[in-house]
């Protein structure tokens, strides 16, 4: 089955406002993330995309190449500022991917800014955040995000790369999320 079909099949069966753990094979990873976002946007949702490994400008271009309508998407770029990049109309740059509190605050304010009952949040990826942060702080941050999404009725997608996340964090994520999708 194609990656796109697999994503669509799994996402169609999800309840509204679920929090999903998307555990991806490193080889399919980027494609799968693109399809997941596309699916959400096509369902009429508006959302926030947090990127930790690729620059916002690259992702935007890749989405445009794939005809993904990005006008309903806001970005948080956690990595480009480290290399001196700061400007982008619909993107908020985080100075440092280790500044989890700042990421949390920006997520809050961007979600507030979206005027829709159908919001979603995608974190690309927990694996990349682990490069810059300790495992306990990522554990705490993930808990914070999952609780926030539930409290605010936001659909959540947490992306991990298969075998790239310590077992204890993976176990907690699986336990806390409503669904785990392996692609």
């Amino acid at each position, binding site marked *: 089955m194609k990656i796109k079909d697999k994503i669509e099949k799994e996402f169609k069966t999800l309840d509204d406002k679920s929090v999903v753990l998307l555990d991806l094979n490193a080889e399919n990873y980027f494609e799968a993330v693109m399809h997941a976002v596309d699916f959400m946007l096509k369902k009429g949702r508006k959302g926030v995309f947090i990127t930790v490994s690729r620059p916002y400008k*690259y992702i935007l271009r890749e989405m445009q190449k794939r005809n993904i309508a990005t006008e309903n998407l806001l970005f948080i770029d956690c990595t480009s500022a480290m290399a001196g990049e700061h400007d982008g109309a619909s993107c908020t740059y985080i100075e440092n991917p280790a500044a989890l509190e700042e990421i949390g605050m920006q997520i809050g304010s961007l979600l507030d800014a979206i005027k829709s009952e159908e919001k979603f949040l995608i974190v690309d990826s927990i694996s990349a955040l682990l*490069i810059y942060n300790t495992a306990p702080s990522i554990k705490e941050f993930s808990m914070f995000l999952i609780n926030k999404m539930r409290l605010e009725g936001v659909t959540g997608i947490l992306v991990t790369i298969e075998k790239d996340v310590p077992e204890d964090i993976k176990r907690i994520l699986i336990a806390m999320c409503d669904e785990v999708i392996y692609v």
Partner: protein
Amino acid sequence: MDDSDKYTRASATRSLGELKTKIPFGMRRKVVKKVINASKDNKDIVKHASAICIGQLRLIIFSEGMMYKATERLMKLSYDKEWGIRGASAISLGELKENIPVSMRAKVVKRMISLTGDIDQNVRGFAAFALGNLKNIVPGHMARDVVKQLLMVSEEVEGYSRRYASEAISEIKNLIHDERQKKIINKLLNISEEENWTDSISVSKSQVLQEGALKEEIGEIIGSIASLTKNENKEIRKSSVEVLGILSVFIPVQKISDAADKILVSGNDPDEAVRASAALALGDLILRCPENLQIEIIRKLLSLTEDSALVVRRPATYALGNIRELPGEMGDCVFNRLIKLCDDEDWYVKSLSILNIGKLGAIIPENKLQIIIDKLIFLSVNHDKIVRGSVAQALGSLKDMLPKDAGERRKIIKIVMGLSEDVGLGVRASAVWALGELKDKIPYEMRRNVIYRLLELSSDSNWYVRMHTAKSLGKLSIIIKGDVEVEVVEKLLGVTLDPESSVRSPAAWAIGELRMSIPKDTRKKVIERLLEMGDDEEWIVRGSAVWAVGKLSKVTPGGMENKIIEHLMKSLDDKEWNVRGGGIWSIGRLKDAGMIPELVEEKVAGKVFAAFSDEDGYVRGYAAGTIGKLKTEVSDGMIKDVIKGLVELTDDSDWNVRGPAALTLGKFIDRVPEDMKGAVSKGLLKLTGDVEWAVRHSAAYAQGQLRTIIPKDMKENLVNSLLKLTGDCDWVVRDAAVRALGGLVAVIPKNKKEAVSDAVKKLSKDSNRTVRDSAKRSLKRLKSIVS
């Protein structure tokens, strides 16, 4: 990776990093080469991706035998002008761990240590993180530096981290050849290790200072250490200067000037490490110098803060914080320089100078205050979190110096309120602390907002912020008024259930501070919660709760006495001294509030008396003091034992016990059995020569009470003792002594009347007003003997 677009190249690099071992064997070498080459890309975003990717691909790089090359590239990137690239290279070097070639390990660790002092806070954090990862490859000789550096990064706002004095002492000890001096320096080395000396302040708190002989012995070797400051070996010069500063408390007054000269000369040493030691030593010495020398030292420190070497500017800036008084015209120079240092390119110098402004708040010249406040306001939006945190701390420390103008104060509070919402954890915590410090300086119309802000922060995601919030709510108790009282109490009650003991404990403390602000209908609930907290698994929480129960004794609703006493009695059996001490203190407060139920009075007194033999000095001290409050509860059957116990406690090695024991004996004078009058008098008289003023003060008061029981043959001793105390260097002691003499008219022997008269007359002209007033009142009481 050869694309013309930089984002494509960067993303391709990151994708390779994510693939890790999924990269086919046949392609690995090529991939590694490409990734390493990407680190030379002319676009920062690609270099950054390459730095991260090298860490992700460490296993492949290692198996391809290209680790030397990769480590070398990362080392190069660690010097990049872009902070993100330095940070990324630190992360990846940390990831490489044991894969780093042996020949490069020391170099990598050294670079990481140096990056923990990077100008950018994010890089400092990543370097500290990397050092943690590299723990298993740190060469033995570098382990201490790594630990020290990590401690420094974790507490960087707190101040300057100095090495242990024992390190410098051991470096120079072999150069002391005289046999007697060798013994002394070895002794010194042992003590400095035991007591963890780092600066002259820690030395001045040392127990050895109590021993006059040892102090003299150490004074003897100062000359030998001073001569080493001219040694040809720069390491010896550095260590001897450092030791000279640390040991400055042992330098006899007449030799201070010689030592200062030596250190001042070292401030011009061609070696920067020696100049850095001189800066620290001058900071130590300034605390002990006469005014003319202080001016010279301050001038030298000011010039050292302009040194081109960062390793000198940092300690010199830190040392300026040791200034206690500013002689005459130096005020402007010091503060002008500190203001300028706030703009230093180095984050640490900047932060230290801001903290110094807070430390030296009381001596800021009036004409500089507005400039300083404007500077701090400007720095409150600095990009560096450490700087913003230091600003919050400085503004809190300047609480007594803030402008009277309400508009200006409003501006300052707004800034601190803004900082309390900062993304930086340390900044938020410092701002919360500052709001607590500013308490009644907060303009009326802003108080409500400040309190609500703190109530909000008491649910902060971080325990450190919640802890400071609870403390600040307690400090703000004096401005918590009206309808907000209910909300504060309810919130704090919620905080007492916090999962962190470091938060529950200050919450209990804060509730105790609220006292009358606790609404009447909530008081029972509050006390009950505090009693529950007395059973908390953490002693720090039990202690705060027990103390808070005592503080609330006067607002405790009737009918709770038995329950409270039962809990407090239980706390006296706690394994922690702080809980036992708090329990005893609170029993005393309950007695003041008339809340000790009659039926248990004797039992309570017995339990407190039993604490006379507690292993902890503070507990014995509280027991000695509290039994004085429970005088009527001590039964006739117990009195002899209690008096005997108190006399024994006047011999206690801890002055915190001797003082309260003397005071309580004074209170018990009318219950001293006939056959113990001599022992009690003797016990109190011997305290006249006590080293602690607080004990001499209590002794003076208690000796005044001896008039009704003093045996005939000791009357002259009593008067002699009080006469001696009237000449005490501490005015509080002189005051108590002169008041005591005023009540002794009936027991002053004829041959002492003139001396008493002269002494009291002399004190009526004392430099202290309270002493003069007390002397005048005593003169009236002694009119029958005053000539």
